[in-house]
């Protein structure tokens, strides 16, 4: 019992001294700017915000950039996750990612951009431009976490490469290194892992290219050194260890959709009304909680993103 109490004290202390908090002010300024803009947008009215159950439960900063819900301990977030490149059990990524070498790293930006090229990670995501975002993360398997990420909005990165008018989708590719990623030696999925977003989703201010979490660099098991975070979509959209970003006119293939088209769609927006064919998506268990909680539409980011899908049948475009 004594040991357990000590652990609790440690984790409290870590939360207080989390070095990532120094970016708070910048976040609030961006959030305030966006909120001001949101007032002018249809579908983002105050009345709708009030009707969102998420607004009552977890107070978010205006743009949805930071929830003040209790954060999942780093130990859990870094030891219980899906990263099939390192194995299909949720402890595998932590246990079997030790041989992975995330540095040096470069990313190829290709396709419908005026300035394509291969860029070193430090130039792609400049450390001083990084922000902290505290997002809910909802896995398609009906569990969830709250994770403080460090990164830059994808929109800022893409803008530098000057997307052309034909850039309607963004395709991402994970590194292929079977010698360092034991999961890639078996064809459970079609390697390398690929994911994609519509351009407006990619340019949304919530969409983050992350290089860190909990105030430190991404651990190998969480997608070092560069991953995508799209908080209103199921976790598998957050492609890890990205080596290629391609802008294109046609919808890109996505790995889980190819593996099981009936179960995983291209959009993969968190939606309690559309069940996974084999299990319900109405509820989720927040890691650390005893009972499940209700899953929120768009993972509680409806105020920010619902307008992206207005007029779409989300049961068809799941």
């Amino acid at each position, binding site marked *: 019992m004594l040991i*357990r109490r000590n652990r609790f004290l440690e984790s409290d202390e870590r939360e207080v001294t989390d070095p990532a908090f120094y970016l708070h002010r910048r976040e609030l300024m961006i959030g305030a700017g966006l909120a001001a803009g949101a007032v002018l947008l249809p579908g983002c009215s105050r009345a709708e915000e009030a009707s969102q159950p998420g607004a009552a439960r977890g107070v978010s900063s205006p743009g949805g950039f930071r929830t003040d819900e209790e954060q999942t301990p780093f130990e*859990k977030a870094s*030891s*219980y996750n899906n990263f*099939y490149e390192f194995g*299909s059990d*949720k*402890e595998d990524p932590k246990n079997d990612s030790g041989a992975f070498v995330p540095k040096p790293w470069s990313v190829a930006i290709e396709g419908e951009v005026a300035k394509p090229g291969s860029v070193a990670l430090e130039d792609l995501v400049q450390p001083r431009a990084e922000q902290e975002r505290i997002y809910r993360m909802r896995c398609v*398997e009906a*569990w969830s976490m709250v994770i403080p990420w460090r990164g830059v909005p994808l929109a800022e990165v893409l803008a530098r490469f000057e997307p052309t008018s034909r850039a309607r989708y963004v395709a991402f590719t994970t590194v292929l290194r079977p010698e360092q990623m034991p999961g890639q030696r078996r064809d*459970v*999925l079609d390697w390398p892992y690929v994911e994609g977003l519509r351009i407006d989703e990619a340019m949304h201010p919530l969409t983050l290219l992350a290089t860190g979490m909990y105030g430190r660099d991404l651990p190998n098991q969480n997608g070092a050194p560069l991953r995508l975070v799209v908080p209103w979509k199921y976790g598998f959209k957050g492609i890890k260890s990205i080596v290629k970003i391609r802008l294109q006119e046609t919808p890109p293939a996505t790995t889980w959709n190819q*593996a*099981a088209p009936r179960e995983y769609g291209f959009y993969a927006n968190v939606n309690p009304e559309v069940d996974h064919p*084999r*299990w*319900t998506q*109405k*509820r989720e*268990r927040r*890691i*650390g909680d*005893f*009972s*499940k909680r209700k899953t929120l539409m768009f993972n509680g980011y409806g105020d920010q993103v619902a307008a992206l899908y207005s007029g779409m049948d989300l049961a068809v475009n799941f």
Partner: protein
Amino acid sequence: MRRRALHAAVIAAGLLPLAWLALRAWRGELEAEPIKDVTHQTGIWALRLLLATLAVTPLRSLFGLAALAPYRRTLGLLAFSYATLHLLTYALLDLWGAWDTLVEDVLKRPYITVGFAAFLCLVPLAITSTRAWIRRLGKRWVQLHRLVYVAAVAGCLHFLWLVKKDVREPLIYSGILAALFAARLLLRLRPGFAAATKARKSASLSASP
């Protein structure tokens, strides 16, 4: 006396996974989703013990291990105990406060439907596992207890259908079940394979299907 000690040892061994689970829970070492962890562990041990139960008769016949016979019921009841814990963990803890979803789950989710069916098959087998019931039912006891095959197939399907993509592990269990079926078929078609026909006959008192 020795047989009693062995019997106690089998029961103790069968309860070890439960003790290990309890110890991990007490030390706070369960996975990040403790209820899912307990559900998975009790479920996997229910299936393992069920397959062990089904292995008793073929092993006895093929290798003349007549001494195994008395443990079949013990293994079966252990399997049933784990299956009960598995169902209770899911129905009480996993669905905590949202019990209305139980009916929907059982009706709408094929892997839960077959899992629940497997459990229902095991209930009458557990109830009629006593000597008194064996005597009372006579030949019909053998017929009734063929339900164990249905339970085993449903149990394997339950595992296979709940896995997201990597079906290696559930396929191993399905493979073992298939091998056990093959062994029984072989024994039925070619009785000469039985290493100890005598042992088989004497054991048929405890009514082997």
